[in-house]
């Protein structure tokens, strides 16, 4: 079992915060989720990649917001009234991630969890901790540390 999976069951007790992007349900370890806020005005920041939507004012603190859709190379969705921002806390750094629909908190059993599933080439496997089954639902557990880390948010300046 990978370090991340161990952490999932040992520290987060198998608890996931799950949400939808498109039709697919994704989950992040409950320990990594800080809070969920409604979609608000996002101020764009120049010189940043496309998935970096900009920054928001989270009660006086400026935090970046990324769009998982474009991060995962999926087509741009229509923002809906159901869309919201999940604020993730990775080593004290807060980052907002836009999701289409917040599902809620679920607890998964270790036996229903598969460490490194073959999901085809859709998503970079680095971003995934594993896959969990819950009744008939299939939840892709994201490794937010990898999704967000070693991420230079600023593009190197292209000469104009």
């Amino acid at each position, binding site marked *: 079992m990978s370090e991340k999976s161990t952490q999932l069951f040992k520290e987060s007790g198998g608890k996931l915060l799950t949400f939808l992007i498109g039709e697919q349900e994704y989950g992040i370890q409950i320990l990594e989720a800080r809070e969920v806020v409604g979609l608000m005005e996002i101020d*764009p920041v120049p010189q940043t990649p496309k998935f970096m939507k900009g920054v928001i004012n989270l009660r006086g603190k400026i935090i*970046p917001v990324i769009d998982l859709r474009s991060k995962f190379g999926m087509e741009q969705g229509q923002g809906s009234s159901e869309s919201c921002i999940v604020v993730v806390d990775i080593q004290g750094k807060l980052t907002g991630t836009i999701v289409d629909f917040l599902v809620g908190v679920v607890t998964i059993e270790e036996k229903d969890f598969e460490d490194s599933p073959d999901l085809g080439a859709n998503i970079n496997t680095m971003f995934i901790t594993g896959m969990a089954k819950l009744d008939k639902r299939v939840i892709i557990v994201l490794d937010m540390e990898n999704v967000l880390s070693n991420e230079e*948010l600023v593009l190197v300046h292209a000469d104009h």
Partner: protein
Amino acid sequence: MVEQLEISQETRQELEQALVPVRQELNLKLVMADLREYRLPGCGEIMNLFDSLATTLDQYSVPYFQEAINFVNNLLTEVVTEHISHYTGLSYVLNLYEFLEEALDDFLVGENEFEFFDQALVRLEKLFAGVEEVRKVEPAKTEDVIQDELPADILEDGLASDFINEAMEGLEVVEENLLSLEENGEQPERVDQVFRVMHTLKGTAGFLGMPIIGKIAHRTEDILGQVRERKQSLGSEGTDLLFTSVDTLKNLVNQFKEILSGQPPTPVNLSRFYDKLSGFGLDEQGEAILEENSCVAEAPPVENSAQQVIPMPGEQSAEAQDLQKKQLDVNDVIIATKVQPSVPEKRQETATKNVKSSKFTEMLKVPAEKLDELAGLVGEMVVALSLLTQNPAITEVQNRTVHKHLDHLEKITESLRDKVLGIRMFPISTVFNKLSRQVRDLSKKSNKKINLNISGAETLVDKTIIDNIYAPLMHLVRNSIDHGIEDAEERVGTGKDIEGRIQLDAQHLGDSILITIKDDGKGLNTQAILAKAIDRGLTGGRDNFTDKEIFSFIFLPGFSTAKKVTDISGRGVGLDVVRRTVESLRGKVTIDSIAGQGTSFILNLPLTTSIIEGLVVRVGTTRFVLPILDVYQTVTPLAGELKGVQGKGSEFFLFAGNLVPIVRIHKIYDLDSHVVDPSEAVVVVVKDGDKKYGLMVDELLHRQQIVIQSMGTRFEALEGISGGTILGDGRVGLILDPLELIHNLYSRIHKAE
């Protein structure tokens, strides 16, 4: 490492053996000679022992410690000849011997550097020099002690105040640990912690010349040391003793505080501690003392009224049954230093001196983070209030009471802001003092006599600036000494004073701080700088530069005209580092120089680094904030004033007779903007030295105070953006750093060409 030494490890081991008897004897005698009991033969014995220690060291050609031993023997001579009280003398001897023992142990295991010991020796010698005419020890009426006041230099250094705060903090830690030990029994790590505090306390007290505190801490440390070695638990008796030690120390420290603040000191009773100590049978040293005591009990104590032996309080305790206690330590002493004829007089004197009360300031340690949060919140409050007062709905209100209350609120908010920002402000003297020490060194190294003049050292500046300004200032001072100030012959030749002058000055100027470093050296060589700049291809074919423009070249990376690399400067770390550091503090550095007369570097820094006055502008849908200090003027150029090729790199507008390049923000950041014609836009003119640039934006929105927030490491690479801020409507605005923006832009254009 050991091989390089003159004294081999074998010799050291031999020496260790040779020293054992003399050290043992010395330990014993010093314990016996413990302060209160003055006996002439005792002093002689101790001197003899120190002599044989010196002889032994000499036999093994050990170059260290002789000075210390001489000092000790001088002290003892003074005691014997009654020039100083035996208490004062012996307390110095004991203090020094403690340090000496430690240093000796270190030496025996191969150490050759005794920095701490040397410092301690210098400190003690200095302290002792302050003990001049000394009153004989007066018989004390009570069992209580009142400590001596410290020499003035220590008081002025603020060391005493620091000591009190530190000691109190340390003792709280001890208390906490003791409580836990009492409750949960054996916990070696807690014993260790207590040990450490006591050890530090002993060291500092010794260093500062507070023998009583040092001694009690030392005894306590001994007990803990034994507990540690034998790995046995303290037991209730031990804990009790330690609590008593803490209480006694606290009382002593408090007494010190009282002395410092000019209040009448509360006497401290030491016998509780020493009673308990003698009752605590663990102590090896204690056992030795008990043995000694029995010897003493046999021999009648020396009664010599001329020598002013301190009698024990109350008749009943003065006798043999209490000898043990008497022998053990200081119980009731008033020590004299300097010229203080009698205690009551001294008290009166201190009481009338109100100045003394400022010597101690109660301190509170608060995490810097909390202060930052507070500053941030107050900043937000200022902003929120300014938005409220500028809101048309409010400005249109006719009711005068409403405006009166708003005015009042504004005033309170302002003073709240000043107070909160004031918490982070410290006098720049800490930096200046460090610099003056360096100047002394540099002056020696460079063989130039330097007269450093400091003014405005009390100027308050933000902690962030204090933390970061030393390196650039040091660099500039080095620069002045190395390149500015001429050699002695040259100075004399040009009719200057042989001593070079450097003036270091700090002052407040409106919302900023000016720090000036001025030398009376040869001034900057504009020819050499220009030649170098042309050589480096930095002039872009121009040749009509003003002096200021030429000076600004020396701030470019890797620019140094020094002909030789010296020990002091010219190692390739250029003035560009100075400029960058100053700019990172949102400041500016400029140069003034007159050939043959000297050079001034002028640093202009903001008062605080967290709140600035900003101009909010819009480009497309993005809002930027420009620090008002960077804004020279804002204009909308007329169509006829536009020159060059529009929309290309080479576009200019006519501003006060000069062609000023236009920098299109929307192009740099790739923003959608409908305003493409500069004559329909607003151009914000910024100055980089003498050069002006026009930043083209769509619209000016308003001016407001903003709280600068870091955007975090992930946005560090953003060009020309130094942070973010929450604007009045709760959205985020990006703070522009126009100079960085321009520098990057032009260095890119240069590369492209």
